[in-house]
């Protein structure tokens, strides 16, 4: 479903030049639950942002469903983000002056759904994430876990095939983080391709595949612990 070929990305100029990604080759099948791990500065967030069409790459190719994603065309990129990708970030990225319903409804407004349809889809997403009673609340009135659920609801409400999460539990306590992980698992079981960037091994071990990045390159690409144990021991 997703294929990266020789992708590179550099930041800064001259002495401050940093090669965030160096010749990344990666392939992800539909329905996979993948964790991308690495130390700070290893390039994992950069990789995720390129996968989400939110950051351009300097070199290489990005293939999605057999077609290249054209980073030169803002219009195509916008369409790609709008239709194919749901994004969840560590700091929730909820608009403070919109209530939860309005936040979750954002992607649907860009797609041109009717008011009635938007209401239907948003309430369903909120129900799925068990925060339908918070529809009229504002982000500041919610706990971290609830905000993250709202962010996930926004990411999935448009039924994207690819869900990307950048440190989704980074700002949450352990219990809440586990609850959020459960949500990702549930979504993956429903067929979503999910890629999670994390430095937390506890999060990664539950993924079926872990890709390690080091100094902008893939240093390891293997099964997650649970998947490994399943394979080996079942």
């Amino acid at each position, binding site marked *: 479903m997703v294929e990266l070929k020789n992708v590179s990305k550099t930041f800064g100029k001259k002495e401050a030049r940093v090669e965030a990604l160096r010749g990344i080759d990666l392939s992800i099948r539909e329905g996979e639950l993948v964790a991308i791990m690495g130390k700070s500065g290893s390039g994992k967030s950069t990789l995720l*942002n390129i996968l989400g069409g*939110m950051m351009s790459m300097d070199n290489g190719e990005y293939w999605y469903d057999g077609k290249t994603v054209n980073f030169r065309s*803002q219009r195509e990129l916008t369409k790609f983000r709008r239709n194919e990708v749901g994004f969840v970030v560590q700091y929730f*990225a909820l608009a403070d002056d919109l209530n939860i319903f309005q936040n979750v409804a*954002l992607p*649907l407004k*860009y797609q*041109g*759904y009717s008011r009635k349809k938007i209401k239907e889809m948003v309430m369903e997403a909120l129900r799925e994430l068990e925060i339908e009673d918070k529809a009229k609340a504002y982000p500041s009135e919610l706990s971290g876990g609830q905000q993250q659920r709202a962010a996930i609801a926004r990411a999935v409400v448009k039924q994207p095939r690819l869900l990307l999460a950048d440190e989704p539990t980074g700002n949450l306590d352990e219990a809440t983080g586990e609850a959020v992980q459960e949500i990702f698992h549930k979504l993956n079981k429903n067929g979503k391709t999910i890629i999670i960037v994390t430095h937390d091994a506890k999060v990664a071990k539950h993924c079926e595949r872990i890709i390690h990045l080091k100094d902008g390159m893939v240093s390891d690409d293997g099964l997650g612990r649970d998947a490994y144990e399943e394979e080996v021991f079942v």
Partner: protein
Amino acid sequence: MQRIRFMAEEFFRSFQKSLFKNILLMLMFSISLLMAIIMCSYYVGLGERYETTTQKVDGREWYPLDLMTESGQEVSNQFTTVGRCRDMVDYYETLKSLEEAPILSIHTSQSVGLKEEDVKKFFGEKDVLPFTSGGEVNVAEVPFWDGDTYLTRSMKGAQVDLGAYRYFGLGTQEGEGFTEENMTIQRDGDPIPLLLGSDYKGIIEVGAIIDVNFEMCAYHCKVVGILEKGSKLPVQGYMELGEVQYLDNRIIFPFGVRLLEDPKRAQQMERYAWNAYMALQSGIAQTKVEHIRELVETYGQIADQFGYPPVQIIGTSLGLDLLRRESAAKIRILLILTVVLLCFSFYGLSVTFYDKIQSNSKNYGIYLMNGCSLSMILVPCLLEIAVILFPAVVIGRYVLPAAAVSYFRAGPIMQAVYIMIGAAFLVGAASLVYLMRGVDTEHLIRQRD
């Protein structure tokens, strides 16, 4: 539809958030636009004048004048002392004597009131009707020179000053025309010169003393000459219209009689003040287009000197018309204020939108992240700029034409309004696009709460 709805919601949300700032910007732009248009009109003649108002004669431009007042009360109420009457006479003399803009005063449809007994005496059995305006005989509204009221007949008349008399080449077949000498009288009571049209030959003799009522004042007059046959003047001084008024059956009264000694009573001086006032109302002045502004400023200075309203040059640009009562120094201050206000308006607009983009960058990033296009973020901002500038357009479209006195050309004024508003919008839009250039998801993802 939903996208339009989203943009509309964004626009209202954003506009409401900066409501106070936006209202302030609207005010600033409206005022600065108004002032800028008036200043442009004042200094570079924006709006110019109606071509038909000015007259090109012998290759020179003549502009009609008017001592523009509110129904004349503002001026006439001041003729209560000898001093103020003298000020009006001197005011006219000073204006008339300006080297760079000589004034001609002409009025071709006047009525001169003669005592009916004088009419009978002079005309005898001759037909008097061709010489009358109206033909009725009425009791005079004001007493004649001797203080008594009489049955009066209105006779056809005209009025002209010495400059116009000479300019239009009027001449006499008998006696003398208007001269510096006969237009200057020592004291009130000395006879004022009258000229008669050629048809009066054999009816009234040169040298005859006649008392007349003219423009609600009594005058003691002496016939100094009879004009050549066919003498004419342009109708009401409008030379370019081509119409002429023949003077053959008219009594010609002078503008600009100079009185050397002040009388004791204001009522005695009042008639000379009225004469001078009407001369300014019926005047035309010659000057070049590029000197109009200087002339307006000169007229303003002279008006200040004598404490009367400035003479209006009919058909000047909007700015000159509105600011003719202000001194050149005050107008320069206004110009500086205009520039400052305009700069502040643009600065305010830039800062407001810079702040807006900076403070909303998180929201914009969220929108972009979720599939919003940059244009859907830009359009509400552009709409906000347009709304801020809109009152200025309304004011320019409706207030400016209404505020200005007649005789200016609205077309160039409106074009200037639209160009200025358009420029302001383009500057705002360009700044916005420039600021939004860096607002992409790559930039925003790097931001943290």
